Protein backbone atom coordinates (compact mmCIF):
# COMPACT_ATOMS: atom_id res chain seq x y z
CA UNK A 1 0.00 0.00 0.00
CA UNK A 2 1.28 3.50 -0.79
CA UNK A 3 2.04 5.91 2.00
CA UNK A 4 -1.15 6.71 3.94
CA UNK A 5 0.14 10.13 4.94
CA UNK A 6 0.70 11.25 1.34
CA UNK A 7 -2.88 10.33 0.57
CA UNK A 8 -4.13 12.10 3.69
CA UNK A 9 -2.39 15.34 2.73
CA UNK A 10 -3.47 15.21 -0.94
CA UNK A 11 -7.10 14.34 -0.18
CA UNK A 12 -7.34 16.89 2.65
CA UNK A 13 -5.98 19.65 0.39
CA UNK A 14 -8.52 18.80 -2.31
CA UNK A 15 -11.44 18.67 0.15
CA UNK A 16 -10.49 21.93 1.91
CA UNK A 17 -9.89 23.89 -1.31
CA UNK A 18 -13.20 22.73 -2.80
CA UNK A 19 -15.12 23.84 0.30
CA UNK A 20 -13.26 27.17 0.33
CA UNK A 21 -13.75 27.90 -3.38
CA UNK A 22 -17.37 29.07 -3.21
CA UNK A 23 -17.23 31.54 -0.33
CA UNK A 24 -13.68 32.79 -1.00
CA UNK A 25 -13.64 33.32 -4.75
CA UNK A 26 -17.15 33.16 -6.08
CA UNK A 27 -19.19 34.93 -3.39
CA UNK A 28 -21.96 36.94 -5.04
CA UNK A 29 -21.42 35.26 -8.40
CA UNK A 30 -23.77 32.79 -9.97
CA UNK A 31 -22.65 29.61 -11.69
CA UNK A 32 -24.12 28.71 -15.06
CA UNK A 33 -27.00 26.26 -14.51
CA UNK A 34 -25.44 23.82 -16.94
CA UNK A 35 -22.17 23.78 -14.95
CA UNK A 36 -24.09 23.23 -11.70
CA UNK A 37 -25.91 20.25 -13.16
CA UNK A 38 -22.66 18.73 -14.47
CA UNK A 39 -20.99 19.14 -11.07
CA UNK A 40 -24.06 17.62 -9.41
CA UNK A 41 -23.85 14.55 -11.62
CA UNK A 42 -20.21 13.81 -10.77
CA UNK A 43 -21.10 12.36 -7.36
CA UNK A 44 -23.66 9.78 -8.61
CA UNK A 45 -21.34 8.73 -11.46
CA UNK A 46 -18.40 8.22 -9.11
CA UNK A 47 -20.34 6.54 -6.32
CA UNK A 48 -21.79 4.05 -8.83
CA UNK A 49 -18.28 3.44 -10.22
CA UNK A 50 -16.93 2.82 -6.70
CA UNK A 51 -19.77 0.37 -5.95
CA UNK A 52 -19.26 -1.49 -9.23
CA UNK A 53 -15.49 -1.87 -8.85
CA UNK A 54 -15.73 -2.81 -5.16
CA UNK A 55 -18.29 -5.53 -5.86
CA UNK A 56 -17.09 -6.99 -9.15
CA UNK A 57 -13.34 -6.43 -9.44
CA UNK A 58 -10.91 -9.14 -8.40
CA UNK A 59 -7.17 -8.68 -8.98
CA UNK A 60 -7.14 -7.10 -12.48
CA UNK A 61 -10.31 -8.82 -13.72
CA UNK A 62 -14.01 -9.04 -12.92
CA UNK A 63 -15.81 -11.68 -10.88
CA UNK A 64 -19.22 -12.31 -9.32
CA UNK A 65 -19.03 -13.63 -5.75
CA UNK A 66 -20.50 -13.29 -2.24
CA UNK A 67 -19.97 -9.52 -2.29
CA UNK A 68 -22.92 -9.16 -4.70
CA UNK A 69 -25.24 -10.74 -2.11
CA UNK A 70 -24.08 -8.14 0.42
CA UNK A 71 -24.91 -5.34 -2.03
CA UNK A 72 -28.38 -6.75 -2.74
CA UNK A 73 -29.09 -7.02 0.99
CA UNK A 74 -27.86 -3.43 1.43
CA UNK A 75 -30.22 -2.31 -1.35
CA UNK A 76 -33.18 -3.98 0.38
CA UNK A 77 -32.22 -2.44 3.73
CA UNK A 78 -31.97 1.03 2.17
CA UNK A 79 -35.34 0.51 0.46
CA UNK A 80 -36.81 -0.43 3.85
CA UNK A 81 -35.29 2.81 5.27
CA UNK A 82 -33.10 1.05 7.84
CA UNK A 83 -30.48 3.30 9.50
CA UNK A 84 -27.07 3.22 7.82
CA UNK A 85 -25.19 1.31 10.60
CA UNK A 86 -27.79 -1.49 10.50
CA UNK A 87 -27.67 -1.53 6.69
CA UNK A 88 -23.87 -1.93 6.77
CA UNK A 89 -24.06 -4.68 9.42
CA UNK A 90 -26.66 -6.60 7.39
CA UNK A 91 -24.56 -6.34 4.20
CA UNK A 92 -21.46 -7.62 6.02
CA UNK A 93 -23.38 -10.48 7.66
CA UNK A 94 -24.91 -11.56 4.34
CA UNK A 95 -21.49 -11.70 2.64
CA UNK A 96 -19.85 -13.41 5.64
CA UNK A 97 -22.73 -15.89 5.90
CA UNK A 98 -22.56 -16.79 2.21
CA UNK A 99 -18.81 -17.43 2.58
CA UNK A 100 -19.47 -19.93 5.36
CA UNK A 101 -21.73 -22.04 3.15
Amino acid at each position, binding site marked *: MTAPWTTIVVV*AAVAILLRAA*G*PALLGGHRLAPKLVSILGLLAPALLAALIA*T*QVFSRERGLAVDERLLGLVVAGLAIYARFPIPITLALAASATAGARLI
Partner: protein
Amino acid sequence: MAGAAGFSPVAATAFSAIAATGSGQFAALSVLQAGGGAPAAGLTVLALNARAIPMGVAVAPVLRGAVWRRVLVAQLVFDESWALAQVEPGRWDRRVLLTTGAVVYVSWVAGTAFGTIGAASLGDPQRLGLDAVFPAFFLALLVPLLRPSHAIAAAIGGAGIALALTPILPPGLPIVAAATGCLVGIRR
Protein backbone atom coordinates in the same frame (compact mmCIF):
# COMPACT_ATOMS: atom_id res chain seq x y z
CA MET B 1 -12.33 -0.34 7.17
CA ALA B 2 -9.34 1.98 7.17
CA GLY B 3 -7.16 -0.78 8.57
CA ALA B 4 -7.62 -2.79 5.37
CA ALA B 5 -5.87 -0.03 3.42
CA GLY B 6 -2.90 0.04 5.81
CA PHE B 7 -4.06 3.01 7.93
CA SER B 8 -3.27 2.92 11.67
CA PRO B 9 -6.01 4.22 14.02
CA VAL B 10 -3.96 7.43 14.44
CA ALA B 11 -3.65 7.95 10.67
CA ALA B 12 -7.35 7.24 10.13
CA THR B 13 -8.39 9.69 12.85
CA ALA B 14 -6.02 12.35 11.52
CA PHE B 15 -7.54 11.74 8.07
CA SER B 16 -11.01 12.49 9.46
CA ALA B 17 -9.78 15.50 11.43
CA ILE B 18 -7.97 17.13 8.48
CA ALA B 19 -9.94 16.11 5.41
CA ALA B 20 -13.37 15.74 7.09
CA THR B 21 -15.01 14.31 3.99
CA GLY B 22 -16.71 11.01 4.81
CA SER B 23 -17.52 9.92 1.27
CA GLY B 24 -14.20 11.31 -0.01
CA GLN B 25 -12.20 9.40 2.62
CA PHE B 26 -13.96 6.13 1.84
CA ALA B 27 -13.43 6.73 -1.86
CA ALA B 28 -9.72 7.43 -1.30
CA LEU B 29 -9.37 4.22 0.74
CA SER B 30 -11.13 2.26 -2.03
CA VAL B 31 -8.68 3.56 -4.60
CA LEU B 32 -5.72 2.62 -2.37
CA GLN B 33 -7.18 -0.82 -1.68
CA ALA B 34 -7.56 -1.41 -5.40
CA GLY B 35 -3.82 -0.69 -5.72
CA GLY B 36 -4.01 2.94 -6.86
CA GLY B 37 -1.78 5.72 -5.52
CA ALA B 38 -2.25 9.08 -3.84
CA PRO B 39 -2.69 11.01 -7.15
CA ALA B 40 -5.54 8.74 -8.27
CA ALA B 41 -7.12 9.06 -4.82
CA GLY B 42 -6.83 12.86 -5.01
CA LEU B 43 -8.42 13.02 -8.47
CA THR B 44 -11.28 10.79 -7.36
CA VAL B 45 -12.00 13.03 -4.38
CA LEU B 46 -11.71 16.11 -6.60
CA ALA B 47 -14.48 14.80 -8.83
CA LEU B 48 -16.56 13.32 -6.02
CA ASN B 49 -16.45 16.51 -3.93
CA ALA B 50 -16.88 18.91 -6.86
CA ARG B 51 -20.44 19.36 -5.61
CA ALA B 52 -18.90 21.47 -2.80
CA ILE B 53 -18.33 24.31 -5.31
CA PRO B 54 -22.01 25.05 -6.10
CA MET B 55 -22.88 24.34 -2.44
CA GLY B 56 -20.29 26.91 -1.34
CA VAL B 57 -21.52 29.49 -3.82
CA ALA B 58 -25.08 28.97 -2.57
CA VAL B 59 -24.21 29.62 1.10
CA ALA B 60 -21.68 32.39 0.37
CA PRO B 61 -24.15 35.22 1.19
CA VAL B 62 -24.51 34.12 4.85
CA LEU B 63 -20.76 33.82 5.41
CA ARG B 64 -19.44 37.26 6.39
CA GLY B 65 -16.11 38.82 7.27
CA ALA B 66 -12.61 38.68 5.85
CA VAL B 67 -11.65 36.06 3.31
CA TRP B 68 -9.77 33.88 5.84
CA ARG B 69 -12.84 33.85 8.12
CA ARG B 70 -15.16 32.86 5.29
CA VAL B 71 -12.74 30.11 4.22
CA LEU B 72 -12.56 28.83 7.80
CA VAL B 73 -16.32 28.79 8.31
CA ALA B 74 -16.77 27.21 4.87
CA GLN B 75 -14.99 24.13 6.21
CA LEU B 76 -18.15 23.41 8.24
CA VAL B 77 -20.25 23.20 5.07
CA PHE B 78 -20.89 19.45 4.78
CA ASP B 79 -23.71 17.69 2.96
CA GLU B 80 -25.61 17.31 6.23
CA SER B 81 -25.18 20.85 7.60
CA TRP B 82 -25.83 22.33 4.16
CA ALA B 83 -29.11 20.44 3.83
CA LEU B 84 -30.28 21.11 7.42
CA ALA B 85 -29.44 24.82 7.35
CA GLN B 86 -31.48 25.47 4.22
CA VAL B 87 -34.46 26.95 6.04
CA GLU B 88 -36.33 27.67 2.82
CA PRO B 89 -35.35 27.01 -0.81
CA GLY B 90 -32.30 29.14 -1.59
CA ARG B 91 -31.94 30.66 1.89
CA TRP B 92 -29.54 29.45 4.59
CA ASP B 93 -29.41 30.10 8.34
CA ARG B 94 -25.89 30.91 9.51
CA ARG B 95 -26.39 29.67 13.11
CA VAL B 96 -27.91 26.35 12.05
CA LEU B 97 -25.12 25.90 9.50
CA LEU B 98 -22.37 26.43 12.07
CA THR B 99 -23.96 24.36 14.84
CA THR B 100 -24.85 21.35 12.69
CA GLY B 101 -21.48 21.63 10.93
CA ALA B 102 -19.64 21.50 14.26
CA VAL B 103 -21.73 18.54 15.45
CA VAL B 104 -21.12 16.64 12.21
CA TYR B 105 -17.38 17.34 12.41
CA VAL B 106 -16.91 16.32 16.05
CA SER B 107 -18.99 13.15 15.76
CA TRP B 108 -17.21 12.13 12.55
CA VAL B 109 -13.73 12.52 14.06
CA ALA B 110 -14.72 10.86 17.36
CA GLY B 111 -16.52 8.06 15.49
CA THR B 112 -13.41 7.38 13.41
CA ALA B 113 -11.22 7.21 16.53
CA PHE B 114 -13.49 4.74 18.34
CA GLY B 115 -14.26 2.78 15.19
CA THR B 116 -10.64 2.20 14.16
CA ILE B 117 -9.52 1.33 17.72
CA GLY B 118 -12.40 -1.15 18.03
CA ALA B 119 -11.77 -2.61 14.57
CA ALA B 120 -8.11 -3.25 15.39
CA SER B 121 -9.27 -5.91 17.87
CA LEU B 122 -11.40 -7.70 15.25
CA GLY B 123 -10.21 -10.63 13.19
CA ASP B 124 -9.90 -11.24 9.44
CA PRO B 125 -11.90 -8.56 7.59
CA GLN B 126 -12.79 -10.94 4.72
CA ARG B 127 -14.23 -13.59 7.02
CA LEU B 128 -16.44 -10.97 8.68
CA GLY B 129 -17.71 -9.75 5.31
CA LEU B 130 -16.25 -6.29 5.93
CA ASP B 131 -15.40 -5.92 2.23
CA ALA B 132 -19.17 -5.69 1.66
CA VAL B 133 -19.38 -2.65 3.94
CA PHE B 134 -17.76 -0.16 1.52
CA PRO B 135 -20.14 -0.78 -1.41
CA ALA B 136 -23.12 -0.85 0.98
CA PHE B 137 -22.10 2.56 2.35
CA PHE B 138 -21.63 4.04 -1.14
CA LEU B 139 -25.04 2.67 -2.12
CA ALA B 140 -26.61 4.38 0.89
CA LEU B 141 -25.02 7.68 -0.26
CA LEU B 142 -25.99 7.13 -3.90
CA VAL B 143 -29.69 6.29 -3.54
CA PRO B 144 -30.83 9.75 -2.32
CA LEU B 145 -28.99 11.36 -5.27
CA LEU B 146 -30.89 9.35 -7.88
CA ARG B 147 -34.04 11.47 -7.96
CA PRO B 148 -33.60 13.14 -11.37
CA SER B 149 -33.52 10.67 -14.25
CA HIS B 150 -30.25 12.05 -15.62
CA ALA B 151 -28.60 11.20 -12.28
CA ILE B 152 -29.58 7.56 -12.89
CA ALA B 153 -28.07 7.78 -16.38
CA ALA B 154 -24.87 9.27 -14.92
CA ALA B 155 -24.68 6.48 -12.32
CA ILE B 156 -25.15 3.73 -14.90
CA GLY B 157 -22.62 5.43 -17.17
CA GLY B 158 -20.08 5.77 -14.36
CA ALA B 159 -20.45 2.13 -13.26
CA GLY B 160 -20.24 0.88 -16.86
CA ILE B 161 -17.12 2.92 -17.66
CA ALA B 162 -15.36 1.78 -14.47
CA LEU B 163 -16.13 -1.91 -15.06
CA ALA B 164 -15.17 -1.77 -18.74
CA LEU B 165 -11.81 -0.14 -17.93
CA THR B 166 -10.92 -2.25 -14.88
CA PRO B 167 -9.12 -4.99 -16.86
CA ILE B 168 -7.33 -2.40 -19.06
CA LEU B 169 -6.16 0.56 -16.96
CA PRO B 170 -3.87 0.58 -13.89
CA PRO B 171 -5.74 0.40 -10.54
CA GLY B 172 -7.51 3.58 -9.46
CA LEU B 173 -7.76 5.16 -12.91
CA PRO B 174 -11.01 3.42 -13.96
CA ILE B 175 -12.76 5.23 -11.10
CA VAL B 176 -11.29 8.58 -12.13
CA ALA B 177 -12.34 7.93 -15.75
CA ALA B 178 -15.86 7.12 -14.56
CA ALA B 179 -16.29 10.81 -13.73
CA THR B 180 -16.99 11.31 -17.43
CA GLY B 181 -20.12 9.25 -16.80
CA CYS B 182 -21.75 12.52 -15.73
CA LEU B 183 -21.64 13.63 -19.36
CA VAL B 184 -24.04 10.82 -20.20
CA GLY B 185 -26.67 12.63 -18.21
CA ILE B 186 -26.05 16.04 -19.80
CA ARG B 187 -27.46 15.13 -23.18
CA ARG B 188 -30.95 14.58 -21.81
